[in-house]
């Protein structure tokens, strides 16, 4: 027999040769020294190779395994944070009751009703979150531009993240309205009109520089442009954004408007008005059957409001007729002589002088002035209450943070490898904080969308709230840079939170610090969620 091929030798050394062939080779090897040597060499080689392959320098740390997030975790988080918020609030109420002149300003919706209770607990939980969103919504027009820029920045760094966000937004915008009803889009760079006499029998989306709606829309109207004028009839909701918004026609549903100026001129609104802008006004000839909720610098209520008015702004002026209550959170609340208020008037102002009721104005119920304590505002660092408030705040954030880190272990190891990562997270956080309410507003268009929008709002608000815990964890970890690794996450969390709470209370820059830290933390949460989405999609 000739010497077998090198392949046969190799297979024999690996024990992979069939029994008959192996026997033949063994017989041959008894008489062939060369083959014996080869087999021996190959055997040693296998052993050496096995050892060498396993001998990889592997001191790289084992990253934490992040089990996929389940819906249950989110529910637990939401319930947990709500519970912690509720307890903190209850605790605070007890403490506040023990301290003279309680902190009513912290609880602006004081009332016995369950709904308002829940709302006030929620306000407490998302104290920072809602404040930020109020600011964001006030600037919705400008914010869209910022969002676009932030998005472009994100696109440059993470094309897949952009794709995921864009695709989901597109899906929301395109798919959801079509479930409910048909959709008509009118778009132009210049003028978009719906002439008088013309009727659109479904939802109309109008976008352009100038939008003039004189005809009828038998559905919802979404109008976004520099100048939006609605003189026709809209049977559904009117959702609009622009520099100047004038409503002179009839709207069967709600009016949700954001812009520099939002005016109801001769409008008839079947349900509520939600106005966000520098100036929000309801003209003498205008009528809102439901509530009017207005955020702005200058709020003028001159027309008729069927239910309550809630105004948040520098100046809230009422000169019209309000069937229900009026509540103003403002620098100045003014009732002109023509004002007629059926219910109570509550003004949350700095001093008694900031509520002005002209002679001739009528308030059916009680007049209440809730003072936002000036003393406390000016010298807040000198009051016990202030520090107690911070302790409660810290405690609530710590418990919420612990819950978050326990549920989502991947957040425990979050870190910033470089400054770019911080900027990226901040940009992403800003983009998400701006787009979330816009997306929520858009999904509000359909009936099925409303619960989704509420969910988006709630999750977003809780996300903004706990984002400070996330950033605190990152800061805490960088403080404990020990060779044996960081201590338990509770220790790093509380350390980081102490630093964060001090930072956001610094005079002067505290507000900015709060804003930046919240956005960066939010960005970390969003980027981790996106990374998970991407990995899921890439596999």
């Amino acid at each position: 027999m000739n010497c077998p091929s090198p392949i046969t030798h190799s297979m024999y050394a690996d024990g992979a040769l069939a029994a008959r062939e192996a026997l033949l080779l063994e017989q041959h090897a008894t008489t062939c020294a060369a083959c014996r040597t080869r087999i021996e060499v190959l055997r040693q080689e296998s052993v050496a190779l096995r050892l060498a392959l396993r001998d990889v320098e592997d001191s790289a740390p084992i990253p934490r395994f992040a089990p996929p997030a389940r819906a249950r975790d989110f529910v637990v988080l939401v319930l947990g944070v709500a519970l912690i918020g509720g307890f903190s609030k209850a605790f605070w109420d007890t403490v506040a009751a023990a301290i003279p002149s309680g902190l009513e300003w912290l609880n602006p919706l004081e009332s016995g009703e369950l709904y308002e209770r829940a709302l006030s607990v929620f306000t407490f939980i998302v104290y920072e979150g809602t404040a930020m969103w109020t600011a964001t919504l006030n600037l919705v027009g400008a914010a869209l531009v910022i969002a676009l820029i932030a998005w472009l920045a994100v696109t440059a760094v993470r094309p897949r993240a952009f794709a995921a966000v864009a695709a989901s937004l597109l899906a929301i915008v395109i798919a959801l309205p079509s479930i409910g009803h048909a959709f008509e889009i009118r778009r132009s760079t210049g003028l978009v009109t719906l002439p008088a006499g013309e009727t659109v029998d479904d939802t109309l989306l109008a976008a352009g520089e100038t939008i003039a709606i004189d005809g009828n829309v038998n559905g919802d109207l979404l109008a976004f442009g520099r100048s939006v004028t609605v003189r026709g009839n809209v049977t559904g909701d009117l959702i609009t954004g622009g520099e100047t918004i004038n409503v002179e026609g009839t709207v069967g549903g709600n009016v949700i408007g954001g812009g520099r100026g939002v005016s109801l001129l001769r409008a008839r609104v079947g349900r509520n008005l939600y106005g966000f802008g520098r100036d929000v006004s309801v003209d003498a000839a205008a009528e809102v059957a439901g509530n009017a909720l207005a955020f702005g610098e200058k709020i003028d209520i001159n027309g008729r409001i069927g239910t309550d008015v809630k105004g948040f702004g520098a100046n809230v002026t009422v000169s019209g007729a309000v069937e229900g209550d009026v509540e103003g959170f403002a620098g100045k609340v003014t009732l002109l002589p023509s004002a007629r208020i059926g219910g109570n008037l509550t003004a949350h102002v700095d001093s008694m002088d900031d509520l002005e009721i002209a002679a001739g104005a009528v308030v059916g119920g009680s007049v209440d002035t809730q003072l936002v304590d000036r003393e406390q505002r000016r010298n807040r660092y000198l009051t016990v209450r202030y520090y107690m408030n911070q302790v409660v705040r810290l405690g609530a954030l710590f418990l919420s943070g612990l819950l978050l880190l326990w549920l989502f272990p991947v957040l425990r190891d979050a870190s910033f490898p470089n400054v770019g990562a911080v900027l990226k997270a901040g940009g992403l956080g800003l983009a998400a904080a701006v787009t979330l309410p816009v997306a929520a507003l858009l999904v509000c268009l359909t009936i099925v969308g409303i619960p989704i929008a509420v969910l988006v709002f709630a999750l977003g608000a809780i996300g903004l709230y706990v984002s400070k815990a996330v950033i605190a964890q990152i800061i805490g970890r960088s403080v404990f840079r020990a060779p044996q690794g960081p201590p338990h996450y509770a220790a790093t969390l509380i350390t980081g939170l102490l630093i964060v709470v001090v930072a956001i209370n610094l005079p002067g820059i505290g507000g900015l610090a709060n804003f930046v830290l919240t956005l960066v933390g939010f960005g970390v949460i969003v980027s981790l969620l996106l990374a998970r989405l991407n990995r899921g999609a890439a596999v």
Partner: protein
Amino acid sequence: MTKEAAFAEAYTAHYRQVRGLCRQLLGSAERAEDATQEAFMRAYHAFASYDPAQPFAGWIMRIARNHCLDLLRRRTTERALFGDEAEEAAAAEAPGEDGLGTVLGAERAAAVNAAVAKLPERYRVPLAFAYYADADYDEIAKSLGITRTHVGVLLCRAKQLLRQSLEETP
């Protein structure tokens, strides 16, 4: 012990081994990291079907192996991946007097691994299967969708190329 805790324990215990396999199969530490996470993610989802009587190592290594193969296949077609058997067989050579065994002291492990990482995929993959994952020829043949002899040819060639590569870099 809860399912989560059991899995977390198994994860820590086997992570490095799985990452090693992925690294040998994919030839890149970075891609290995991702592949390892994904393998464990797959294992996590399939944990209910895992039979605790079987060793966890074998199970997770099989998942990782299959995932890496999927990744490799996605980049290239199978034929191109493992080449032509006859052509390869013709090029096969036996080791000289001193094969890898004699030159491979512990201090040369790094050099071997570097050489392995540089091997073309069609050699590196069966090599990692056979000498890292300790899979037998039948298993490798089945996983790669090639014949048993083809596996033998590829392994023989792989070792031959390794020898050449290591001789060049003493």
